[in-house]
């Protein structure tokens, strides 16, 4: 049975006919929309490589059926930069060497952005470590990841303060 669904992906509305209800958001993005920045590390919600924002919240896209998210607003790693202008979290990951192989990186970055929006960790490195623990990094770039999040968060705060001033 075919199901029509529509999603907003990185700001653009996309309508699809889904021929198979088994398709996860992750596989929809990767194999059908060819947005391959989002990675599949475990396909079971145990590594975080597939983290995307759905309606502003970070989730594991491997455990989300696309059909159940009809109408959702989705943000992936491809939707962050504005032309050459990187998102502050992206830039900070480069500056602090918050990755090595880069495979977990899109998930780490989306998770960090989700975490900053959640506003639960503040500038406490311990809380950031806890709140980023859903994203495994086998290369062991955690030190750089935490530094990058702290740095980016600081820059985003400054920008927001300038805007509100």
């Amino acid at each position, binding site marked *: 049975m075919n199901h029509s669904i529509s999603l907003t992906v990185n700001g653009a509305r996309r309508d699809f006919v889904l021929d198979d209800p088994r398709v996860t958001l992750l596989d929809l993005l990767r*194999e059908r929309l060819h947005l391959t*920045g989002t990675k599949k590390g475990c396909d*079971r919600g145990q590594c975080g490589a597939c983290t995307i924002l759905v309606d502003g919240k970070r989730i594991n896209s491997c455990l989300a059926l696309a059909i159940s998210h009809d109408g959702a607003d989705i943000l992936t790693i491809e939707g962050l930069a504005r032309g050459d202008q*990187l998102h502050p979290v992206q830039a900070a990951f*480069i500056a602090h060497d918050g990755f090595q*192989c880069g495979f977990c990186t899109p998930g780490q970055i989306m998770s960090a952005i989700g975490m900053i929006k959640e506003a639960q960790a503040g500038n406490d490195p311990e809380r*950031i*470590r806890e709140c980023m623990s859903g*994203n495994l*990094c086998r290369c062991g770039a955690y030190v750089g990841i935490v530094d990058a999040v702290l740095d980016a968060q600081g820059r985003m705060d400054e920008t927001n303060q300038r805007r509100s001033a």
Partner: protein
Amino acid sequence: MPELNLTSAPAHLRHGSNIGQPLTRRDGILKVTGRATYAADNHPQGMLFAVMAVSTTARGRVVSLDVAAAKRHPGVVDVMTPDHKPQLAIDPEIKTNPFVFRMEVLQSDEVRYANQPIAVVIAETLEAATEGAALLAPRYETLPPLVGLDAGESFAPPVVGVGNPAESHHGDVEAGLAAADKQIDATYETPPQYHNAMEPHSIVAAWNGDNLQIDMPTQGLALSLARVAELFGIAHEKIHIRSPFLGGGFGSKGLMAGPQVLGVMAAKLVGKPVKLVLRREQMYGPVGHRAPTRQRLRIGADAEGRLTALDHHARTVSSTFDDFFEPAAGASHTLYAAPAIRTSHDAVRVNTGTPLFMRAPGEATGSIALESAIDEMAFACGMDPLAFRLKNYAEVEPMTGRPFSSKALRACYEQGAARFGWAKRPLQPRQMRDDAGLLVGWGMGTATFPALMFQAEARAAIRRDGSGVMEIGAHDMGQGAWTALAQIAADAVGLDIDRLDFKSGTSDLPDAGIAGGSAHTATAGAAIHSAGAAVIGKLADLATSDERSPLFGAGNAGVIARDGRLIRRDDESRSESYAEILARAGLAEIEARGTGAANPAAMEQYAMHAHGAVFAEVKVDPELGQVRLTRMVGAFAAGRIVNPRMVQSQLFGGMIWGLSFALHEEAVTDRRSGRIMNANLGEYHIPVNADVPPLDVITVEEHDPHVNALGIKGVGEIGITGSAGAVANAVWHATGVRVRRFPIRIEELLTQG
């Protein structure tokens, strides 16, 4: 766009030029924007999805597969089985060279380990292929599997690791032990571990006639290409492998693995491009692992705390059908100045996928046992663990008596200990607590890893516009090769790095050897260095032999290359740009090749190793037994540091692997079925962010004139050695409980209230 296409966009920070500079990653922008193309991100026109079915029995034979049920599933195109598959040109059981391992590519119905591929379902969608594989419902004839370190009769393997002798000795160990004032006789166990790179092994294979295009993560382009060529009976030139990015390798992507060959076969069977990606649980079998070990260390020391003997025996396992023996005891060859050292190995065969090199093979397993035993001996002698290590500092390589090509370990000890505050450590365990009442312990370990070199070739060119090209089929698994090798290349051709076109990561480029053994930067770097020198030499010949050049008559050795110009060594006011030289010669480009390889004479003469000292602090809940690393300082001396930023990250990563070895990682095998019961990332624990405190790395200055022209020793693996033992020793120091089975589990620390 799978080719490596490095950008230099605004956020690509530079801090100066070339070797020694902490450049940010040149592939950084691609990686943070999701544009870095890993193998499974490719999707050629008409591509189908292949999913493996794997065995749930560890030993036996597949007696039936419900192929019809799989084919009935909508979207399933074909099912590849032992009875229905393309023929290979050679038997995959034939070992054509020492780097060829046996693999299961449906050559028979035999099952030799759990998770062995037994069929491949090819379908129009991933969902259909996945369910098709489930519908095969295999039936087996099952035999009781061989499981564990005591599975059967042990034997002494002919070699361990890659060609190392299984037994070595120097001096009289038994006499040394008999004469000792203090003796330690301790047995340590390490579990099977799986590489678990974040990127599952994957392949996209597309045949075009007898041309074969492969997208596949590999740490060994040339070896993989040769393996594909021989298996499919096609010429090397017909095969093109692209591996611009690897999502981690750690040894498991060094060689062509069976599942990747199955991807090529599947594409041939259906006549369309095919993508095959391993599911996470399928990575616990056909793509290698670190074998378990049981290691017995007997150590003697005299009344002053000087070692009298060191005997290190390691039991390990290999598969029932191939040989790889974790060379764990070799760790005792180099570090401590015992007058008598013996190392030996034995092994049993079990129903497992063949073990393979996994980050610091032998060194990691051996190091945690050796460093634990040294710690035990230091305490038995009533000595501080650092003082004990300094007392037994090896001025020459203990096993061979060869001098070290360089060894700044003493400086590592000093700088690491000072940074950590080691001097305040109480000798007795269970002496320190924090404000919350948690036990605090400090432990240390010595790190060591050999400075290896393989063989590589590179091609350098200078173009008419004055820019340069460096081509080498190298590999970046995350270590930063695209940045570090480009830095070496830029210096090699005397250009700013942004004027250099660095091409890498595909099989049509000169062979860079395997990215393993922490030798890639040294080996590929040496080839790049020599190719650069050769092309500059040719350019200098052009200029200095042309009377129209201001460099005329300076002689090849009379000029230096810098910033795109050749400059007269004795008169820097006389120079000429590369572009001018080529323009006058009417050449579009000038090129040369260079090679990198070990210098056998130097290797004969010197022992070549990187060293380090790692200091760790753990906290342990005194009643509940949960452990947390709270600080770790590592000081490492590894020759020339090409890019300090990337080196620091490599060392951090290694130290986290050490933490993981000591406290977390273990594949749990059901002893009856031979199946791994935690073949996933939820229960096979690798450290999460919250497990890792701020780490501190010191790179100790070390100049080594012997290892290679660039003085590079490599940093990919040394970080795990020393660190694992440091964490284990810190747990002992916190609790007074010496755990000799790794990873250290909560229940072992519940003995005291």
